[in-house]
């Protein structure tokens, strides 16, 4: 009789775990079918022989897809060289994403700080003003940027009217355009996490800093910056990752020539008709993103371990 309650408890526990699996089943199945599973299929595609009109030849395996990510074979003499075109797109994607991240940080940090130091009731309004662009369509915002930097757009018209230039500067369809566009569309992603950590900033610590003879810059660098580091890392990751995989912005603002990884991938599934290569490129992109995320997780757990005083 003494064991009876324990048995009941164990049964109840097991029933609870079972119902928890049942409850999460729909979400898990949907995500498996329409997000995770296809990634595995894609992995398989990356090691198959390309079909003549796109697709692959099932069951025929080849390392050509992966080979083509980094190398190219000359059609005539079979010499192997680096796939410069791909590598330069990789490099451009990474470079543009890094510059985007730093730029959003330069604009976003003071902005988040500004919002966090407003009186409580007006703060909400400022946050709201950041949230609106965050939730409005990325394509529309890219399109808006296009209108601004076009040769006949506001920037050029204004500069011409002021006599600074007499020919419009070609911004659209350059790397600058992609950069402006990405900074513009991803800026809220930097401000929001930064603000979240600054809002919790205890300004008595700042006062303590001034009390101990720190100047404004010293307070910023030695007190504020370390305390909001989690937000800073989160914001950087949130900007860097979508920048790296950006597709719409470079397509609209970069034109056909200035491709980023996203566009290179698309090309393989469209005109390029090289699905194995496209799959291999996608997986490469995903791996870079995973590395960035891992860096974030390590950083987050470390700053979590040091804790808040």
């Amino acid at each position: 009789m003494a064991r009876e309650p324990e048995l009941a408890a164990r049964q109840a526990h097991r029933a609870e775990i079972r119902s928890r699996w049942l409850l999460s089943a729909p979400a898990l199945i949907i995500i498996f079918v329409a997000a995770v599973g296809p990634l595995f299929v894609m992995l398989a595609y990356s090691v198959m022989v390309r079909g003549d009109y796109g697709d692959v030849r099932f069951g025929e395996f080849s390392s050509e897809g992966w080979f083509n990510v980094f190398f190219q074979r000359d059609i005539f003499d079979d010499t192997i060289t680096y796939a410069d075109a791909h590598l330069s797109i990789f490099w451009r994607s990474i470079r543009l994403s890094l510059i985007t991240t730093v730029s959003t940080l330069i604009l976003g940090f003071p902005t988040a700080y500004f919002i966090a130091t407003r009186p409580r009731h007006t703060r909400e309004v400022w946050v709201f003003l950041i949230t609106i662009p965050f939730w409005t369509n990325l394509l529309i915002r890219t399109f808006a940027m296009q209108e601004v930097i076009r040769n006949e757009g506001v920037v050029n018209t204004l500069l011409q009217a002021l006599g600074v230039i007499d020919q419009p500067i070609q911004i659209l369809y350059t790397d600058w355009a992609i950069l402006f566009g990405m900074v513009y569309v991803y800026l809220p992603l930097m401000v929001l996490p930064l603000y979240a950590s600054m809002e919790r900033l205890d300004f008595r610590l700042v006062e303590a800093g001034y009390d101990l003879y720190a100047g404004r810059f010293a307070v910023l660098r030695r007190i504020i910056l370390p305390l909001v580091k989690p937000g800073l890392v989160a914001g950087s990751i949130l900007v860097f990752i979508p920048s790296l995989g950006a597709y719409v912005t470079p397509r609209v603002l970069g034109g056909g020539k200035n491709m980023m990884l996203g566009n290179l991938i698309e090309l393989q599934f469209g005109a390029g008709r090289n699905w194995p290569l496209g799959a291999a490129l996608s997986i490469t992109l995903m791996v870079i993103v995973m590395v960035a995320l891992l860096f974030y997780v390590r950083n987050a757990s470390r700053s979590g371990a040091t804790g808040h005083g």
Partner: protein
Amino acid sequence: MARYFDVKRQTGFATIAIVTFVLLYLPIAILVIYAFNEGESLANWEGFSLRWFVAAANNDAVKQAAWRSLVIAAFAATFATIAATMAALATTRTRRYRGLTFKYAMINQPLMVPEIVTAVALLIVFSQVKVWTGYSGLGYLILAHTAFCIPFAYLPVRARLENMDLALESAAADLYATPWKTFRRITLPLLQPGIVAGFMLAFVISLDDVVITEFVKSGGQDTLPTYMLGQLRRVITPEVNAIATLFLALSVLIVTAFFFINRQKA
């Protein structure tokens, strides 16, 4: 005039912040203004007119795309919210159990993979499935949208659940409510703001999607964003601005509603 020392001040920060806000809103403002341009061009202002709104409203392709967007968003957001709410109930307020980390990772997976990667992976799978089944309806889009909406719907429901006082459900059980009645009468009503917020987030996210839709859709299945993406390749008239403006208004409306619902519960 002497200025008192302000602890919170950092030199130049306010200026940069104002510049940032101007930069954020200026392009959108210009886009909206030119939607009301009388002329065909996006360069010269030729007077105020609503003609492009009228043109957009009479454009069957636009109307169909808009309707399709709404249908997909409504289905995807509904399915995602139901699945996410169930998942949130299954993954919160519990001791760690085997598989919990796996569930978190699965539910948040769509947030961690670049959209273009998911998009081409779905293209690969669905193009094959379309061949096998012969079905090429909106189901694929709804399924794909549901998947990437789940983490967004999950977030507010989970937050709400984690802030909910566990004692409330204990209290209901103590007052003779069976588990089902406790759920119906206590848990669900308390969860409602989170569910509404989750639905709205999912709806907006689905409505805004370009990349996955672009790769999953079959011929003639343009949504408003993919329709606009197609238009941007051509000579653009202010009609695109008009469509974008309407779209923008809808988003702002939903976000504002979301903002106020969220504020109410706090």
